[in-house]
């Protein structure tokens, strides 16, 4: 009885810490995809799933501008890329080749915000982001 008094709060504390750490650290590409799905459903009518094919097309097109996503990330995103302007090496984008990719929601959002603006001249919607991620997750 006396020990339980100590053990329960301790166990509860440990579980809470584990959960917090889990939320902060263990985001996976699938978690990001789930987030984009929720956003896409909220954004508009009739979410019909994400498509790797649509994502690949978006990734490789220049959208009327100078650059595509592939300009820096290469047309084969399991290999390292290179910044189109500065030449600085860029680690592979596909999760299969780089376990750090799509594990930090803030970093994911920052990159999509900037890079969609550079490539498409506008923000990407959740459907487009999910399509691109679907494509990147399909690469082995």
């Amino acid at each position, binding site marked *: 009885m006396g020990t339980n008094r100590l053990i329960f709060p301790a166990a509860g504390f440990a579980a809470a810490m584990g959960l917090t750490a889990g939320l902060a650290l263990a985001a996976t590409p699938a978690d990001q995809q789930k987030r984009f799905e929720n956003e896409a459903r909220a954004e508009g009518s009739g979410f019909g799933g994400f498509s790797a094919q649509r994502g690949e097309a978006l990734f490789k097109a220049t959208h009327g501008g100078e650059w595509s996503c592939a300009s820096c990330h290469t047309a084969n995103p399991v290999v390292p890329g290179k*910044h189109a*302007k*500065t*030449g*600085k090496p860029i680690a592979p984008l596909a999760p299969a080749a780089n376990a750090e990719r799509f594990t930090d929601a*803030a970093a994911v959002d*920052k990159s999509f*915000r*900037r*890079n969609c*603006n*550079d490539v498409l001249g506008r923000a990407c919607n959740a459907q487009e982001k999910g399509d691109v991620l679907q494509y990147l997750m399909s690469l082995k």
Partner: protein
Amino acid sequence: MDTKRRWTLDIAAWVIGLLASMVLIAHEAMASGRLATPPNAQWKTECGSCHIAYPPRLLPAQAWHRMMSQLDKHFGTDASLDPAAAAEIGAYLERYAGSSRRAQPAAGGLRITETAWFIHEHGEIPPATWKHAAVRSAANCAACHTAAEQGDFRKRNLRIPK
């Protein structure tokens, strides 16, 4: 009266001397190529993600200030940051900014390569070197300054690709 005046003169001399040595030290740092500043993780990560994190001393505070206020249009790309990161990095850059007039880019510009200091230091570099496949851009410090990532631009670590 006389002593008071001498005191004032003494203090003025000290202040001027101190200011002059600060300017000289800054100059010396630029000329010797030791441009490292106390580390700042946000600066290193964010400024160093598309190019090397350029040393704060290479531009004056007001140029950094202007640059940080237009990150969404950063030399043709969107380099925007969340406000907290931008504020921290901006303060860091301004704190360690260059104080020399030679760190001032040509009228209205923000490019380090357009400062009197940069032009002077790189005057002997032939045009072919800038076009070299391993260099490509004057923004690519590390192509020749092999320890640029560590803020070390000293001649001893200079390797110009042939």
